[in-house]
Each structure stands twice: as C-alpha cells, then as structure tokens.
C-alpha cells in the first residue's frame, strides 16, 4: 500500500501536478471553446448556403467532419507536432494539442449541430420565412435556439471527452497533469504520482460529467 501512496513522493510530485492542473484546464477550456465555436460556425454555414455556386462548400464541410471524426486525436497530435515542422510549420506542444483537439471536437460538434438543425421541423423555417424574416434571422431566432436544445447533451459528452484527451498532450511534452506526474514517476520509480494524477483527473472532470447528466434531464432529446 505504501508504494502506491508514498507520502514523500506525493509531496514531491504535488507542486508539478498543481501547476499541471492549470495547463490541463487551460488546454481543455481553450480547445473545447474553439472546437464548439468551429462546429457551430461550420454547421451554420452549411445550413445557410443556398444555390449552385456555393453547394460544394457544404460538401467540403461534411468531408472535414467525416475525416476528423475518423482520425484518432493522438495521431493528429503527433502529426502536427513531429511531421508538420518538415513542412515549415513549427507548433509548440501546447499549440499542437490545442489545434488537434480543437479540430477533432470541431468535426464532432459540426455534426451534432447539423443533426440538431436538420431535426428542427421544416414548418419552423416556413413559418419564419412566411412572416418576412430573412433566412439568417429565421435561422438565428427560430431554428438555432431549437437546435441547440437538442445538441446540449451530446455536445456535453464530446466536450468531456475532449477535456480528458488533454492527457494526450503529455506525449508532446506539454507540462500538464499526466506529464508532470510521469516525470516524477520516472525520477522516483514510484507509481504514486500516477495515482495522484488519476485522482486529479477524476476531481476535475467528475463535476462536468455530473453537469452533463443534469443537462440531459433538463434538455431531454425528443
């Protein structure tokens, strides 16, 4: 038991892990915000484009969503960090993780928003347009508010997954919680820092999981 909860090792690991919490939260919040915003913008563009000249844009958005939902975030991360420099693009570990997580969440978020938008009854569009609202106003005031209610539960789940995936950034030397714990573990050859890190992750994300469950009851899917 002592080997897993060695107080001396834990005390030595805590300052690093404590600073890692800030990095983890910073990376999680920024990539969740960017991913959700990206998904919302793309789904909005896809919903509002009309007419032949712009139609391929909708196809491109759908293709982006498919490709990045098929891409493991870890693979995308190592490509951005280790391969992109050969193309002249040098990203810090944090930036590479931010971009990778944001792109992957953006793809899921786009599909979730799109599904919400298309599940709003066509009669809602027609009622709004029949009163002389522009397509943009009809979308913003009538369709999107209804779509968002449907997207909140699945979006919350994807956001939590993205938050947890910040641990992947440890492989590109971002000093977040897991990375800090692993470096102390390597120095001390003790598993205790890893267990501390696991506890920290649960403490960070359990409230979000709970909030997600509450949102699901608040905004039930029809």
């Amino acid at each position, binding site marked *: 038991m002592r080997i897993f909860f060695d107080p001396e090792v834990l005390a030595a690991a805590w300052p690093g892990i404590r600073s890692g919490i800030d990095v983890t939260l910073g990376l999680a919040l920024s990539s969740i915000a960017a991913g959700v915003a990206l998904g919302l913008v793309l789904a909005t563009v896809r919903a509002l484009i009309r007419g032949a000249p712009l139609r391929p844009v909708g196809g491109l958005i759908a293709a982006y969503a498919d490709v990045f939902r098929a891409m493991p975030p870890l693979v995308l991360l190592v490509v951005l960090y280790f391969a992109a420099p050969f193309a002249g693009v040098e990203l810090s570990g944090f930036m590479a993780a931010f971009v990778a997580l944001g792109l992957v969440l953006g793809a899921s978020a786009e599909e979730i928003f799109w599904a919400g938008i298309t599940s709003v*009854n066509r*009669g*809602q569009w*027609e*009622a*709004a*347009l*029949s*009163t*002389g*609202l*522009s397509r943009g*106003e009809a979308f913003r*005031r*009538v369709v999107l*508010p*209804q779509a968002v*209610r449907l997207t909140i539960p699945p979006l919350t789940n994807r956001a939590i997954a993205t938050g947890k995936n910040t641990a992947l950034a440890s492989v590109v030397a971002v000093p977040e919680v897991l990375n800090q714990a692993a470096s102390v573990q390597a120095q001390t050859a003790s598993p205790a820092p890893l267990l501390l890190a696991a506890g920290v992750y649960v403490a960070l994300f359990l409230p979000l999981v709970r909030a997600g469950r509450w949102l699901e009851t608040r905004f039930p899917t029809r």
Partner: protein
Amino acid sequence: MSSVLELRGVGKTFARVPALRDIHLAVGTSELVGLIGPSGSGKSTLLRCCNRLTEPDAGEVVFEGNPVPAGGAELASVRRRMGMVFQAFNLYPHLNALQNAALAPRRAAGLSQGEAETAAREALERVGLGDRTTAMPDELSGGQQQRVAIARALALRPRILLLDEPTSALDPELVGSVLRVIRSLKEDGVAMLIATHEIAFAREAADRIAFLADGEILECGPPGEILDRPKSGRLQTFLSRL
C-alpha cells in the same frame, strides 16, 4: 373590385407530376375566397405558390399590382404583407405567445421592441387571447395555438391572409373558436384565401368558392352556385361524399 392577389396561369410540377395547372384566380380587397377540393388536389401548393414558399414553375403571381419578386428583401417585404397560417400552426415552441407574434414585427418589419410588442398584443387581443400573452405554445389548446398563429400573421398588418386548412388539425370542439376569429376578420375587411374542408363555413363566410381537382380549378363562383348547382361531375361527386 381591385384585386389584392392574382394568380395568372400558375403551374407547378413535382417530379413530373403536375400539382397545379394553369391556375387563374383573383382575390379582391376584403374578399374571402374558399378553396375546396379533395386531399392532394393542390390547395396547399396553390397557397404556397402565392408567397413562393413553393416556387411556381409557370405563370405569375401578382400582389397589389406587382409580380411577387423572386427573392431577397423584396420577397420578404411581400411576405410580410401576405400573412400565412398553417394547418400544423408552426408556432415557435421556445417563445411565448407574445414573442411568437412580436418576432417578425421586430426582426422583419424593423419596429422597436416596444412597438413590436404593442402590435403583437393588439393582434392577440383581436383573436381573443389578450390574457394569454405569456403562455408557451405547449400550454395552449390547439384552437388557442392556431389563434396565436393567426395573431402572428395579423401583427404585421397584412393585406391578405393565406390560410392552409386552419382547422383540420383541431379537435371538433375547438374548430368553432378559430372559425369565429376568421369570420370577425372578414367583418373587418381582411382579404383571405382559405383552403378548407369546412364546407358549411365556406358556404356561409366565403364570397366565392373555387373547386380544385387534380391541380386544376374546375369551377369558381359564389357559394350558392358552386355548392348547390355544381356543373362538373367531379364536384358533384366531391359534394355527395361529404
């Protein structure tokens, strides 16, 4: 009588099936025209071609003397003055009755929030729902929801209302409340084009009735003529089955 709305040779084909063929129909100022006919005869398509929710592929729709524009702000401006009421109400479920009726005055007609709410409140009072302004759609009966939908159109002070089977989705005991509102609008001189299965209502309230079958207007005239002395076999059969 000058017409508010006139369809000149309007046609529409869906996947090679003609839904409307060479429709000629005019609605005069403060005139109520009833559209009757079997399900699938094209009544809804005809109404939807008026404000281009469905794009006609032949002929012309003329509103207040000008062709209805194909799109953009000009079409939106015509749609504001051509209220539409749907069979399924299509109220915005996330907005209360007042917000439903105030949205377009605020966001399409450009009134201030206060002016838009005043217009919405007046419209709700006119349909007898001045005391339910804060009710959400799912707290209202079907008849009340449809009256909110009528108020939503009225709040824009339209020149004509297009009503697509406004009572067909209602329980029988709620039909009367909606028809009473429509009658009172007629007394106030609102022009209306109504697709309906309520033949008794059409007889009593309509100035003219058009009978539609397979996308064509087979007969059009005063209710007494159409309902009591039908000329075509199709109309005779239709009336005998009611």
